[in-house]
């Protein structure tokens, strides 16, 4: 290297020593450190990868739960009741998921703003060779998935769009989730929203899942071909898994 210096003499950049003092539940030290790491570009990327993994695990669990629809009303309603019966634990999971979502989206938007500022002027002739559609549109697909998540909660969790869903009960007096889903997806427009949203989620994952390995520093010639395929495949599996239900309802397979 051109420069040589003694380790004891060189100074850290001024901004690095400006340790943000964030006081919080875990005490100044831990939260301050956490906030500082999140402020760094790589720290934010790592946070996105870790929260991305947690979101993917949630999505896969959610998808497997949904596929119980194919096992019939008994399996579906019993599973739904089992979840509700978790009580306090369910709330811990919900709040945890919310925090994970907020860190993922918060970091995404902050990094996106920085990236917009870093490249204010476009080239007159622009030729990307590597940028894929899924990669370029990841913020957009993420935000559309967020909008979908809000609608989905209003639809099947809070019944804001369909108050009659709250009145559905099966013979054992459990909430009749099976009938609710069949009725809900009987509406072609509603099914359409779900189908399109799941394609968007699949696109998001097709770049995101491959990308998260690199963000965590996992890049090795022996696994790279697998990692490259993991994103697109996880996108396809998640999209198809979720789309199977509205499609089956529309086709009259589930009724």
């Amino acid at each position, binding site marked *: *290297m*051109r*420069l*040589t*210096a*003694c*380790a004891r003499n*060189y100074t*850290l*950049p001024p*901004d*690095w020593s400006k340790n943000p003092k964030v006081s919080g539940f875990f005490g100044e030290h831990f939260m301050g*450190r956490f906030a500082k*790491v999140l402020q*760094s*570009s*790589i*720290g*934010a*990327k*790592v946070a996105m990868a870790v929260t991305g993994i947690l979101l993917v695990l949630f999505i896969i669990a959610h998808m497997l739960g949904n596929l119980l629809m194919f096992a019939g009303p008994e399996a579906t309603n019993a599973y739904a009741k089992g979840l509700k019966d978790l009580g306090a634990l369910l709330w811990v999971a919900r709040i945890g998921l919310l925090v994970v979502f907020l860190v993922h989206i918060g970091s995404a938007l902050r*990094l996106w703003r*920085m*990236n917009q*500022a*870093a*490249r*204010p*002027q*476009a*080239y*007159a*002739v*622009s*030729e*990307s*060779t*590597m*940028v*894929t559609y899924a*990669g*370029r549109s*990841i913020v957009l697909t993420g935000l559309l998935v967020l909008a979908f998540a809000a609608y989905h909660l209003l639809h099947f969790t809070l019944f804001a769009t369909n108050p009659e869903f709250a009145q559905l009960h099966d013979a054992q007096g459990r909430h009749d989730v099976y009938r609710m889903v069949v009725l809900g997806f009987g509406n072609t427009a509603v099914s359409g929203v779900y189908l399109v949203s799941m394609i968007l989620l699949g696109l998001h994952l097709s*770049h995101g899942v*491959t*990308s998260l390995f*690199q*963000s*965590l*520093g*996992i*890049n*090795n*010639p022996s696994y790279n071909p697998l990692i490259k395929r993991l994103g697109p495949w996880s996108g396809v599996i998640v999209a198809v898994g979720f789309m199977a239900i509205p499609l089956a309802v529309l086709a009259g397979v589930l009724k």
Partner: protein
Amino acid sequence: MDLTLRVWRQKDGQSTGSLETYQVSGIIPDMSFLEMLDVTNERLIEEGKEPIAFDHDCREGICGACSLVINGKAHGGFSGTTTCQLHMRKFNDGDTITVEPWRASAFPVLKDLVVDRTSFDRIIQAGGFISANTGGAPDGNAVPIPKPDADAAMDAAACIGCGACAASCPNGSAMLFVAAKVSHLAHLPQGVPERGQRVLSMVARMDEEGFGNCTNHAECEAMCPKDISISHIAKMNREFIRATVRGE
């Protein structure tokens, strides 16, 4: 060869520039891209016009001074080739060639095709060095270095600091450059004393300079004239995670 050039002309950092069109004839296919610009400039001077300002120095692909986004690709986008090593035979007679400066807010345009790349120097100053004792030069073979580490360090050390990575990245991210330096030194025993502080300070400086963040498109890797692999970015991420977890 007769060519139509569309070149970004900008008086200084304050002015707004624009693309100007020039007709150049009699270009020999064996000329380098910079020699073609030299010929264009001689004619502009003869016509009493301001020549096109562009950066260059070694003209043999080792200094990192030349730049230019040619037809939308940094250094023209030919594998392992800097603009100074690019021959006009890669183009066809009658072609229109668009030439623009590096675009990134951390690389402000100074004049025409010349941008200010001192942001890279400041990133190097933040940690791209090793401690060296004064005194007699140590025996080069006294420190054993495993072959794979030496190879990886050598691959990373090939970076000439040209900035094509940041210029071609849709996010204006300089991570390939920073990663090349971090990875080069982290692979070698000589780089170990400052290993943790180095990655933290260089990344902090990179952020402060206003470069963007990697979203793993790998456009930089495709455009880098020294074929630096994004596996070095993964190495930098590992170094960052390691230093952070160790509380450095």
